[in-house]
Structure formats: C-alpha cells, structure tokens
C-alpha cells in the first residue's frame, strides 16, 4: 500500500493550479473568500470559463464531452478548486440530471439537453422534496395526469436550491396514485417558463435567499419530457441520489475552511497571545485536523475502489455523516474564534453588493455560515437517514 500520488497525478495538479491562478476572475474569488453570496452571473461566468476549457463536466465520460478524468484526477481538481476559492459548480444540471439523462434518457433527450448543460444554456433546479415529503421522499403528492400528449402537473415542491435562477426543473411526480408508493412515481423535465409555475423565495435563518418553493398549477408538460418509463421515476431518483452523495462530504471545502480557521485563530489575540495557543481552543482544532486526515484517507479509499469500478455504498453515507459533522464543527470554531466580532450582521454585504470596511468584511460571514452549515446534516438524506441506510444495507439490521 502507499498513499502517494503518481508523477502524472502531481503534474495534473500543477496544471489545474496554474489554470485556476490564471483563469479565475479576481472579483469572484474575493466574494468566495469573504463568504459572500454569488450572483447568478458570477456562477455563469465561471462555468463558461470551465466549459471553454472542457473541464465543466468533470464526471462525464468522454463520449458526452467530459474530460475523461480518472476518479483521482476529479478528486485533485475538486481539492484545487476549493483551495483557490473557486465557486462550487451548480450541480443540478451537470452532476445530477445529466447522469440520469445519460442512463435513462432517449437519444432525442440526450441530444437536446446534454450539450445545453455543457454550454450553460440551461440552469437546472431540483423538484424532489415537498412540504409533506422530506426524508420520506417517496410519499410525494405532486400529481401528473395524462392528457393526450401532455401531463397536467399540480402540486408543490420545496427547498428548491437556486430555483430563482433556473429555467429548467427536473421533477418527481406521482403518475399512479393506486400503485405502491415508489411504483407510482415518474421523472419529468419541466420548462420553468411554463404557465402555472410560481417560484417563491424561502429566506433561511442566515438571512439568505438560497432555496425556494415551486408551485405547479395545471402545468402542461409534453410526454416526451418524461425520462424513463412511466412509473419508473423512483429508479431515476435513487440513481441520482447516489450521484448526489458522491462528493457530498465536501472535503476540499473542509480543508479550505480549516485553513481559514487556523489563520483566523492565529491572528485573533486572546490576552495578548494568538487564540490558537489557548489550549482548550487548540485541542478542538487539533481534533478537527485529525478527523479531516481520517476522512481524506477514507475518501481516497473510496476513490481507489471507484477506479476499479466499484460503486460507493456505505462509504458515501459515512463520508456524508462524518464530513458534514466536521464541516459544522469547523464553522462552529470559526464563529467562536471571532468572539464578540461574530455578532454584527451585514446582510446587504453578504447577499448583496453593498461594500463593507476591510476588517468588518473579513469577519462578516462566520456566524451566517455557521447557521447555513446546519443544512449539511439535513440535505441529501439527513444523517439519521444515512445511518438507517447503513444499518439496513450493510449491517443487515
């Protein structure tokens, strides 16, 4: 066994790093570094740059326009992007609906949608959760009734991330209320411009507009926008969730956040000495560092297994649970490090374009981010759901 990267992999890392140093717009990295929200245009600008370089669809096979990277290369790319303060790629198109279309879509769907995703022509959002269907996703109630060549869709979706910018929605709907709950679900692609769609913002506890409610009122969706057979939407949904969980541990982000924490805690003084030298505080940082070391090796083990074609199972649940807990702990420590400076709240700076004085700007995001990070143990299948998955599928309980 060895944990070292090959010379080729190290050369690839250098190539990625050089590209990022050259291609990332400064105003965007500055927003990421300060924890400010990105405007739709920031995302699009960055994704266009990646698209031009052929690196947007890191997970796609070559035949569809992906770079044909190995799992190790994808891992290196993610790490470098996080370290360079690159924006996260909006995953709903390129990393979520695209694999479903590749696996279950018709040739016409592939031909139409995949190039548009690759060129950032469509902004996708996810229509999964409903007010009555969270962890119990298969209990969803949005109805789709066949009317000739169309489905008439009625219902409500929620927690739709960045839906305010999206022009396309992939959506789980109930096409057969008589069937057993998983069996009556279909997977539809819906144009957000269709009459009957209303998007309403949900403001989260950090004051951000990140998620939305989407109301569907007699929305007409052409039958050819269904992916897979009618009633087989659950298969697509589960397939997508395994892709969603890959990389959900966000270890590149954790590494970057920990770096930031250590830098903050060495600058801030406690009784004349860097806070990082306060034993009780330092111990928590040390433990976070060790947990991250363990997660990074676990992640490499998953990647090495993927290289041999195995699909991550329990390990992705593990990475999700422990990765989210770790990122929450780091955000907690960063907030605490600031002391009283964690109290002021400047939403117009964080979420808008209002400027803020240098020192205040550096500290503005910590508390809001702490509250925002609570989502990590809830989305993508709550951590308790992950544990039940492991208990059932791996331990046979």
């Amino acid at each position, binding site marked *: *066994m*060895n*944990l*070292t*990267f*090959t010379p080729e*992999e190290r050369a690839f890392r250098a190539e990625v790093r050089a590209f990022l140093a050259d291609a990332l717009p400064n105003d965007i990295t500055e927003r990421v570094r300060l924890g400010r929200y990105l405007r739709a245009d920031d995302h699009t600008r960055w994704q266009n740059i990646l698209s031009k370089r052929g690196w947007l669809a890191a997970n796609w096979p070559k035949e569809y326009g992906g770079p044909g990277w190995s799992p*190790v290369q994808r891992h290196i790319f993610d790490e470098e992007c996080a370290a360079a303060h690159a924006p996260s790629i909006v995953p709903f198109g390129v990393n979520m609906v695209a694999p479903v279309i590749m696996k279950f879509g018709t040739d016409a769907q592939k031909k139409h949608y995949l190039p548009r995703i690759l060129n950032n022509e469509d902004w996708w959002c996810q229509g999964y959760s409903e007010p009555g269907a969270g962890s119990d996703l298969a209990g969803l109630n949005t109805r789709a009734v066949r009317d000739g060549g169309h489905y008439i869709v009625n219902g409500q979706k929620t927690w739709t991330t960045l839906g305010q910018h999206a022009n396309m929605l992939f959506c789980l709907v109930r096409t057969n209320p008589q069937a057993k709950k998983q069996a009556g679900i279909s997977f539809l692609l819906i144009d957000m411009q269709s009459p009957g769609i209303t998007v309403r913002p949900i403001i989260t506890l950090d004051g951000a507009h990140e998620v939305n409610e989407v109301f569907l009122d007699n929305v007409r969706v052409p039958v050819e926008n269904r992916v897979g057979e009618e009633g087989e939407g659950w298969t697509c949904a589960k397939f997508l969730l395994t892709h969603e969980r890959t990389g959900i541990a966000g270890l590149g982000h954790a590494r970057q956040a920990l770096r930031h924490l*250590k*830098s903050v805690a*060495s600058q801030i003084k406690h009784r004349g000495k860097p806070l*990082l030298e306060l034993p009780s505080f*330092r*111990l928590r*940082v*040390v*433990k976070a*560092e*060790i*947990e991250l*070391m*363990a*997660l990074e*090796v*676990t992640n*490499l*083990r998953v*990647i*090495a*297994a993927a290289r041999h074609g195995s699909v991550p199972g*329990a*390990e992705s649940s*593990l990475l999700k*649970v*422990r990765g989210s807990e770790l990122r929450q702990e780091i955000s907690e420590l960063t907030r605490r490090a600031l002391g009283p400076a964690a109290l002021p709240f400047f939403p117009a700076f964080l979420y808008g374009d209002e400027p803020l004085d240098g020192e205040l700007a550096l500290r503005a995001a910590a508390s809001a981010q702490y509250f925002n990070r609570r989502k990590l143990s809830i989305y993508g299948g709550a951590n*308790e759901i992950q*544990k*039940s998955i*492991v*208990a059932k599928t*791996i*331990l*046979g*309980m």
Partner: protein
Amino acid sequence: MDFALTDEQRMLEETLTRLVADQVSPQQRRTMLATPAGETSELWRTFAELGLLHMPFSEKLGGLGGDGTDLMIIMRALGKGLVPEAYLAGLVLPGQLLALSSNSEQQARWLAPLLEGEHQLALAWQEHSARYDTFAVTTASQHGNQWQLSGRKDVVMNLAAAAAILVTATLPSGKLGLFIVPANTPGVAQHCYHTIDDQPAGDLVLTNVTVPADHCLSDDVSDAIAEVLAMGRAALCAEAIGTMEATCDQTLAYLKERRQFGLPLASFQALQHRMVDMHLHLEQSRSMTILAATSLSLPARQRDYKIAAAKAYCGESARFIAEQAIQLHGAIGMTEECYVAHYAKRLVMFDHYLGDSDYHLETVSDGLQVA
C-alpha cells in the same frame, strides 16, 4: 496511490486469519494464558514455520523484509483473535531496536536466535516518573571494562518470558544508552503480573547490576527508540483494528439474536444507530491505521506526526467501541464469561500502551501546520 494488497499479502492474511480462528478459541486462549512463561507455545512454533518471526526484519539481517503493510496485516489478525502471544513486545520492538542500534556481533548473539524462535526478549524503556516519555532515571556508569546499572523499569511487557531485556538508562554523558541484560544477571529483580487485559508484564528492579562492555548496545539510542516506538504505535493501531472488527461483529450478531419485547434488538432504531456509529469509528480508524502503516519510512517529524494522529484517533475509537459493545450487550456484557468483555477490556487498555490519546494529541498539536 494504492490500497490493494499484493498476492503474497493476501495469502499471509488468509493463512493467519484461518490459523487464529482455528487455534485461539476462548477455551484455547484460557489455556494459553495459564501456560507458564518462557515455554515456547505450539502457536509460536507455527509462527516461526510460517516465517512470521522473520517478516518484519530486513533481508540483510536474515529477515523477509516486510514493510508497514505486512506488519499491519499480522497485527490485525492477532488482534482479531485476541491472541496471547507477545509478537510485538517480545519480538518486533526489541528486535527492531537491536537491528537499529547494535553491531553485527551483538546481532548474531541476540537477534539471530530471536528470529529463529529460540528465545524471546523484552524492551524496558518505560518508567512511572516519565509516564509515556523515554527519559530514564535509571542510570548506567562505567567501571573499567564493565557497566553498572541501577534503577527501576515499570510495566515491562513480556518480562517473564524474556531471556534478556533491553534496558534504557541515562549515561554519564547525559545521553540515553541502551543495554542488554540477561534475565539471570545478579542484581536483577522481577515482579511479574498480568495486566488487566491479560498481557504478561512486570516491573524490573536493577540494583547495581553489572554487565560487560559488549552489553552496551548504544550510547545514544534516542532516535532509534523513537523509530521503534513509532513502529510499535502503528502496529498497535492495526492490532486494535482487528479487535474492533471482532467486537463489532460479535455485538452485531448478539443484537440479531437477542430478543426483547418480542423483537430482535437489531430492530430497534436507537440500537441500530449506535451500531452504525461503531462502524463509522471503525472505518475511520482503518483509514488512520493505513496512514500510520504507510508512514513508517517518512522523515522522523512527518512520521511521528502522522502516527501520533493515528494512535490518538484509534485510541478514542477503541474506547468508544468498547463502551458501546458492553452497553449493547447489556448486563451479560459485564461478565467474565462473555467473550466480548475481554475484547472491550483490551480495547480500552490499548490506549495505555506506547502513549494514550492525550499524549499523542499533544504531539499533533505541536506539529500542527498553521499557514
């Protein structure tokens, strides 16, 4: 980056796992523990035949040149069966120290028979006043062609079975020296006992013990002992992984079998999630153990940083898993008769060998990269 075992390593793992499963049942283990120290066991002879005694030593010393991964495989299998053989304390640690810090004549006399299974040794490096550090109050002074040692070494593993003991002592130069002291040397007193987790050990009292000049193996052993202890810590992590695996397996089997309220315990969500937490700790500890096993040949600072992180992490996980295993077994987990209780004891006490979590967290803290 490669996590795969070679064909030879896979074979080693299978052979040893089978051997341990066949020869170390709870009953057989009890018998082995009751055997007087110093008698070579059947199992140790089989280890010799399988080449296990040669495995961790370099080829130029007559060994098989095994690396950290080989050692990990062996220790994990031993930990899985709670095997009461002093593979680490009686062979690997003293043997590696001899390999690093003695001359070829000394190696011919002490190391070669060790590899052939003709005797076992012990390493007396620990003193109560130094806790887990290597400094020694025990002193050595030179008188003509001889050395005289005085002091007390505490919790020396495998003491009773050792033909000779490697002893660290502070020299007149202030450096840490290393001596080999045959067990029957006049002035050597041993107070032997078993540890709470069934390991044979003892305290060693040296009262004006005189040894010839060629029994001084090194006049500055600090770096070598750091290297050997690092290897020992990585090996202990691997052993703990085996013990954690067996503990998790036994606990899961018990939850599936035991019924209360008309249902198997495994059907209760509160218990399912505890069981999953045990597995999360185990999986993460596996990663840290691999990190430790692959760090042995790094420069000392990096090696010690990573191995300290692994030992700290595995120590916490081992205790967590032990406590959960007892809790999930309920009252039966408190009994001497319940095999998992012995695993739990070993897992908790694992933290007390070669530095506990607090000790190693400090090492990581000292080496923490800030920028």
